[in-house]
């Protein structure tokens, strides 16, 4: 039993590691797009992972084969080569495509419900539960008086 569990754990670990390593590789970046400077290329990859491909919508531009994603990857590299900071490159794309292009949406008044809605709902639910149990009658009723004790004894005697 224990050895079976160990095997299962090992398989699980192996699977997570494989997926973890696979996830780190940018899948759609073509060799001819890459920059010769590995530092710049790494920054381009980091930015590419954070930008949404607007054609496929659930892939980053680094993962997508769409033409527009390729154009955006090249644009990101052009901006970096021109000396832009990572934030400047991202702002450049956001100015054209809006916050939707960011895979991680920023915290602002439009996204408050998105960021804090689930936590607020959970807090409301917990408050409800606490309130409900606080209102329940106390678990320890007052002790029995002499007459009640007498009656209880007689009932118990009848039973046996």
């Amino acid at each position, binding site marked *: 039993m224990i050895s079976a569990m160990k095997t299962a754990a090992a398989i699980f670990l192996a699977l997570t590691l494989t997926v973890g390593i696979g996830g780190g590789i940018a899948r759609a970046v073509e060799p001819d797009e890459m920059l010769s400077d590995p530092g710049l290329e790494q920054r381009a990859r980091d930015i590419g992972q954070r930008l949404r491909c607007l054609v496929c919508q659930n892939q980053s531009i680094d993962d997508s084969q769409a033409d527009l994603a390729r154009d955006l990857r090249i*644009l990101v590299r052009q901006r970096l080569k021109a000396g832009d900071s990572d934030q400047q490159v991202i702002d450049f794309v956001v*100015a054209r*495509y*809006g916050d*939707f292009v960011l895979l991680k949406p920023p915290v602002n008044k439009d996204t408050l419900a998105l960021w804090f809605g689930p936590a607020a709902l959970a807090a409301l639910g917990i408050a409800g539960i606490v309130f409900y149990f606080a209102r329940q009658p106390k678990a320890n009723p007052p002790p029995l008086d002499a007459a009640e004790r007498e009656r209880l004894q007689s009932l118990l005697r009848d039973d046996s």
Partner: protein
Amino acid sequence: MMRFKFFLPIAVFVLFLAILFDSLLHDPSKLPSALVGKPIPEFDLPPISGPQARPGLKTADLAGKPGIVNFFASWCIPCKAEHPLLLRLADSGAFPIYGINYKDKGDAAAQWLQELGNPYSRIGADTAGRVGIDWGIYGVPETFVIDGAGKILYRQPGPLTSTDLETKILPLLKQASK
């Protein structure tokens, strides 16, 4: 009081369902636009080559009158679908229609316009698609309404329908011309 407490969770749940259901009715491929209400991006495009060539298009050409900027391509099927509407609007002569030809090769666009008719008074050739990115487009066709004073009033991703034209685009253009 008891009643109210009993119905409150149900009311919250129904409200929640209503919000989720509302999201189902929106087309998620229609993205919000970052450029509506903003100045027209700076660009300067050469004309397309071939039989239906018109003068090229740059930001300064869009000043003066309210009009429509339409991104199109000869390889784009929905562009063909909306084309008769643009031709009809061009025939009325009320508002200028400017074309930006997105990623076409050679004189493909000119051939296409030769065959289907040419509604555009000016056409810029965006062969690299860079101007498209500056306008924030993510496909063709896309149509923008401009106010003639250098601002974008409206954007429609995807093909135009006559309903879009009657209910949104023409009213905006008429209001902008006042």
